């Protein structure tokens, strides 16, 4: 049971940071289905930097992970500029743009991973082997029965992400910038009339979205996958979007949804082991988060309120 909490949390938290990224973009009025591509590309940049640094800093060095996280944020942010350019400057269809960014992301990273591997070690493998981040337990709290699993065997990045999420929650709901950002998604004309810059705010929001998604991606690479390969495109970006919709575009409720997803995934897996089923059956349990998403969406899609202006390029002359 403690294992359910431990694994569930380590899955939910990177998912949450991606969902927060998605919320930032959509709240500013840019529909964002590109999270999957952002997280993959960000993770690629992070993993690439990590591969370059590992021989320098030593293989077991944990500092590499933090540098990789920063690099992933930068990489994701830069890659997000494509989405911003297409949606904001070129006024392309935002759903198409999201799909384009995803497909291009898969293609770019797959190609450059094998190209980089050929250049560095001469083998055309499509994997960067990263290893798994070290873990720690919070003394005292982790000794509590059942719930103690939440504080046991934590990855350091979980703490970093929680701090980041708190910061971005504060930024969105308690500051002037956040107020502007949310207004851009509801009524951009009002923001313009009040002297705000709609397109600039949206650019910033999309770039934040990319950076946060990149962090989420590299954390998956360092925990579940233990390497960077095209298998990072497992649809977690879309899960994050589903969490956002189910969470009604609110960071607090979205966090709860992410936790539910995480526990569903780890719970299913542990159930599979507990029932003594052969490993072939794990496929059926790996499906659980996706099925759960569908069921939750069926119940909650009708009631929620997406930002009013999301999906529409801003036109100054329009009323």
């Amino acid at each position, binding site marked *: 049971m403690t294992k359910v909490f431990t694994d569930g949390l380590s899955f939910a938290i990177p998912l949450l940071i991606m969902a927060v990224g998605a919320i930032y973009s959509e709240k500013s009025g840019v529909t964002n289905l590109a999270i999957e591509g952002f997280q993959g590309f960000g993770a690629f940049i992070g993993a690439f930097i990590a591969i370059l640094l590992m021989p320098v800093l030593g293989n077991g060095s944990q500092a590499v992970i933090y540098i990789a996280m920063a690099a992933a944020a930068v990489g994701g942010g830069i890659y997000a500029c494509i989405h911003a350019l297409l949606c904001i400057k*070129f006024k392309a269809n935002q*759903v198409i743009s999201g799909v384009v960014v995803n497909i291009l992301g898969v*293609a*770019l990273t797959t190609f450059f991973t094998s190209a980089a591997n050929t250049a560095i070690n001469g083998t055309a493998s499509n994997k960067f082997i990263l290893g798994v981040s070290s873990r720690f337990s919070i003394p005292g709290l982790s000794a509590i029965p059942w719930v103690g699993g939440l504080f046991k065997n934590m990855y350091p990045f979980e703490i970093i992400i929680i701090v980041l999420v708190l910061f971005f929650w504060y930024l969105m709901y308690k500051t002037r910038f956040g107020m502007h950002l949310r207004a851009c998604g509801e009524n951009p004309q009002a923001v313009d009339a009040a002297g705000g810059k709609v397109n600039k705010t949206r650019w910033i929001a999309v770039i934040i979205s990319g950076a946060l998604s990149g962090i989420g991606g590299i954390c998956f690479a360092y925990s579940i996958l233990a390497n960077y390969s095209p298998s990072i495109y497992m649809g977690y970006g879309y899960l994050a979007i589903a969490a956002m919709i189910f969470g009604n575009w609110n960071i607090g409720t979205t966090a709860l949804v992410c936790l539910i997803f995480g526990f569903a995934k780890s719970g299913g897996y542990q159930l599979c082991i507990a029932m003594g089923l052969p490993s072939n059956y794990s*496929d059926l349990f790996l*499906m659980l988060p*996706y099925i759960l998403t*569908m069921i939750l*969406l*069926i119940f909650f899609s009708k009631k929620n309120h997406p930002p009013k202006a999301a999906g529409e390029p801003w036109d100054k002359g329009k009323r």
Partner: protein
Amino acid sequence: MNTKKKNRWLSGLLTSEKYSSFTVSVLAIVLTLVTASVLLLIMGKNPARAFLCFLQGCGFAPKANYGGGSGMLSDLFDFLNYLAPMLLASLAFIVGFKAGLFNIGIAGQMLMSGFAATVIVGYNKSIPAGLAKPLVIIIGIIVGGLTGALIGYLKYKFNIHEVVSTIMVNYIISYTTGFFINNKYVDMLTRTSRVCSPASRLTWTGVQIGGVGCKVPLGIVIAIVMAFVVRFIFDKTAFGFELKAVGLNKNCAQYIGVGVGKSIVASMALSGVLAGLAGVTYYLGYSNTIIPKTLAGMGYDSIAVALLGNSSPVGSIFAAIIVTIFQQGANYMSSTIGVAKEIASLITGILLLYASCGGHMKELAAGILQKDLYREIEAKQASEGSGSGKEEKR
């Protein structure tokens, strides 16, 4: 002055009603080729040679040497074999897209129908070829159509964004079929599903044409017929008109009496039917096994094809040929000049990027024309103004 004239000529082509759908796509292809050439040059390869290799791999140009029993014609038939599901998949995307829906789940619908047809017909050795082939096609149509209709129903009834639901369904299908293949239908040697019977396969293998062995696909006939059927539906029928009306403006469509919900479900079902056909031509035609837990990349490439073909069914035939040349020719190119074959997907991705900028390119061209027009009018006014001034002095 000369460059200005050229500019205007290009902008005119881009904005003209007659040619714009064609020129925008051509411009996207040219820009992609330029980008890919730059990329290849950076990697120290000769772009011209690489592009020639792509063509050679698809049987459009003779290779340096051939293995026993194969020739240019067998490459060409392999190309057609891959082209058929690609074209059908892109038609599937177009049908959804015209009604304002993004069917990202083509890969999943393909897998589902391919799996169903393989299990029901492909493993049943007693069915004769004359019955098996139509049965495979019918199963593809039914299974694909039902999967598509489910997505449409979820969208209409529960307001679930089709992009999210198709992706979720993709993973569910991929894991479920993977589970059944791994447990019941696996070939222990190749770790893929067991091959389906030759009678059920939509491709005749080992046909001797001109002394070389060819795989003759039935799918390409289906695909081209379907392209014209889709064109007919959208150009000539009330049903197609209703779908287009829903895609352009839902509220307006409702106002003129179109059942929006019905149209959404119908367009997704039709899209699923085409994806199902793509699935059976891919899994029981192009290949004869299913790799468990792997979605065909074609499901996504078809989006590039549809956008490049300006979401016109006949235009997408040409777009499909171009994208297939890159995808199918990549293996030969990779083995001859040593660039990773993933570059094919990269080129497709870049193509998609430029194709999605098409609207902006048109806008840009229109802006240039308009500026030119203003400048001309201003110049005219200025010359007239100075002319009249002189007259006054007189």
